[in-house]
């Protein structure tokens, strides 16, 4: 029997780093306050004591420098895991992410690969200050050359993080900070991987397929339970990776239901719900019985926290979106 620990999602991040750093000397963690302080969310707690200041590095306050140095390290074959403190602070490093991290392999025809994993907590709902609640995965999913992972459970988090660190391609690893400590799960103590690019079906149902990922998985499942009481059975698919999307899983779930809702907290326009809708109607139009509904953040800058409960999709809005998809009658 595999040994397990009962961990929260953020502890699973830490455990993923801990496990992989123990196995592979080339894995190095760098970022603001990741060292002695253990990260502002404690995602790197204890790693500094365990692996020392050379492998768990507090950097100056400069995101482009963090990503850019990690690019240089990774080009030399190391496996850096830079942390950006909040995903809203990835933008000062955006050029390094899109112009270099995403493209180094193509640009050098594979001479330089960048086995790096850029971690950042993303998303709203924790009463955080301005710019601390962004969910802009669509930026990274639109940039070819990157993989983009957004886990929703402690078990997946550890497995996907280890898979990301081992992946020869650069991975943007966005962690749902809203549920960093929301619940615990038994997580194997040993190293294991969860494959990047594969969705997970969290609930089976025949009436409608609901696609979501990250922190929105929980309200979506709750909505599905509520709707089940009304006799609406949702298939809930947690995408886990938003680039590459698991098109097969998406199309398959849709074909079995003919109706769909996509839920994400990112703004609607240009968000991944549009892409998913387009995939479905490209590949499965003939199965379609109703418009695919999108339950998303609104097309406004993420508000200060007194308004965030109105901004974020919640159980009520998810239920309503699903109902709309299910009740549509041509």
């Amino acid at each position, binding site marked *: 029997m595999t040994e397990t620990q009962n961990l929260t999602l953020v502890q699973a991040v830490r455990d993923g780093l801990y496990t992989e750093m123990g196995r592979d000397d080339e894995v190095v963690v760098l970022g603001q*306050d990741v060292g002695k302080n*253990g990260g*502002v969310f404690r995602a790197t707690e204890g790693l500094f004591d365990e692996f020392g200041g050379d492998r768990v590095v507090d950097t100056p306050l400069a995101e482009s*420098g963090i990503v850019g140095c990690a690019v240089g390290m990774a080009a030399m074959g190391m496996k850096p895991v830079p942390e950006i403190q909040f995903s809203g602070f990835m933008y000062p490093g955006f050029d390094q992410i899109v112009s270099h991290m995403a493209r180094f392999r193509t640009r050098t025809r594979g001479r330089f690969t960048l086995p790096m994993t850029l971690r950042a907590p993303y998303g709203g709902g924790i009463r955080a200050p*301005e710019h601390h609640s962004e969910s802009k995965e669509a930026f990274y999913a639109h940039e070819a050359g990157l993989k983009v992972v957004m886990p929703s459970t402690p078990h997946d988090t550890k497995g996907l993080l280890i898979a990301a660190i081992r992946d020869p391609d650069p991975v943007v690893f966005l962690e749902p900070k809203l549920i960093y400590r929301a619940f615990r799960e038994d997580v194997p103590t040993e190293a294991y991987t969860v494959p990047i690019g594969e969705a997970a079906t969290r609930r089976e149902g025949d009436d409608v397929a609901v696609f979501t990922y990250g922190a929105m998985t929980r309200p979506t499942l709750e909505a599905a339970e509520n709707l089940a009481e009304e006799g609406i059975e949702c298939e809930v698919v947690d995408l886990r990776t938003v680039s590459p999307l698991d098109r097969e899983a998406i199309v398959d779930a849709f074909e079995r239901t003919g109706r769909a809702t996509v839920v994400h907290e990112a703004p609607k326009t240009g968000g991944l719900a549009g892409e998913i809708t387009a995939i479905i109607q490209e590949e499965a139009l003939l199965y379609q019985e109703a418009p695919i509904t999108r339950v998303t953040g609104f*097309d*406004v800058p993420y508000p200060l926290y*007194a308004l965030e409960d*109105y901004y974020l999709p919640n159980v*009520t809005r998810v239920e309503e979106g699903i109902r709309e998809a299910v009740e549509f009658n041509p």
Partner: protein
Amino acid sequence: MNVFDRAYDDPVRVLDEDGTVVGEVPDLVDDELVELYRYMKLARHFDGRAVSLQRQGRMGTYPPLSGQEGAQIGSAFALGDDDWIVPSYREHGAALVRGVPLKQTLLYWMGHVDGNRAPDDANVFPVAVPIASQVPHATGAAWASTLRGEDDAFVCYFGDGATSEGDFHEGVNFAGVFDTPTVFFCNNNQWAISVPRERQTRSATLAQKAEAYGIDGVQVDGMDPLAVYAVTKAAVEKARDPDADRPRPTLIEAIQYRFGAHTTADDPTVYRDEGEVETWKRKDPIPRLERYLRAEGVLDDERVAEIEAGVKTQVADAIDEAESVPRPGPRDLFEHAYAELPPELRAQYESFAATREEHGDAAFLEE
């Protein structure tokens, strides 16, 4: 001697730790000195109350300023009426002097975006959370002032950590090139969250970073409000009315210490020594100025008690006011994304309003 003609590691000083005069006392009348003192007391008391509000769950994350009043109040005090400040997230003290009511600051940290709208006559930029991102704004705004033939100066605040960001570099470099009337005021409080000043950069001082931009750089004892006042005043005057030999912009490194946590979400005991805090507390700007003013006969027990009472009332009133502002509604979420609501956004609002109508607010609001 010009205040900028000194070694980078030779801070401008006026008062010693015990309030003894060790430099040139700036030209302030008694009432002004008392006002300076009162503002510092107000900022300090506000700070303590804000931290408690957060602990009581009445406010969100809050970045305390305690220990940094000398730098904030001293510098803001040196500005003319039409001058501007361009703050980070920790300069509620300076903002207060410039006309942002405490109520606004509370609202902001209570998550009400209204708190980030300063009164129209307060020459204060909005709080900037992304580190150093306000630096180019201060350059651009000051540049606009000269382009228009006006002579307003712009004081931009940021921390020691901010000097590592590209935006610091680009913003200050532009100021040098376009000779904008900007004062770059670095609140070097020794820490960027858990990263000490020495790990932020290998340069011996932050003031010497001015070399890279061909502008004046100067250190000041940031816990000496009179020294801060003097050096800021000199920098603002030079910005406004340059002499031929010196560039308008100035980089001021104000050496100081944050007594408290980085924010209420931070636990500084994890990364710094209590002993260090104690050492710096001896430089506390408030007793220092108070000692000087008492020695000068400007303050006495009675006056101090009066000020303390006034400060308490003012903060209590501000808290009452802020807490009586109703929670904003969905309309506030959509307002102001654009000058006019685009059709799709109107549709999003209307659909949301209908859902809320149907399910009631309780379906949305946590707690």
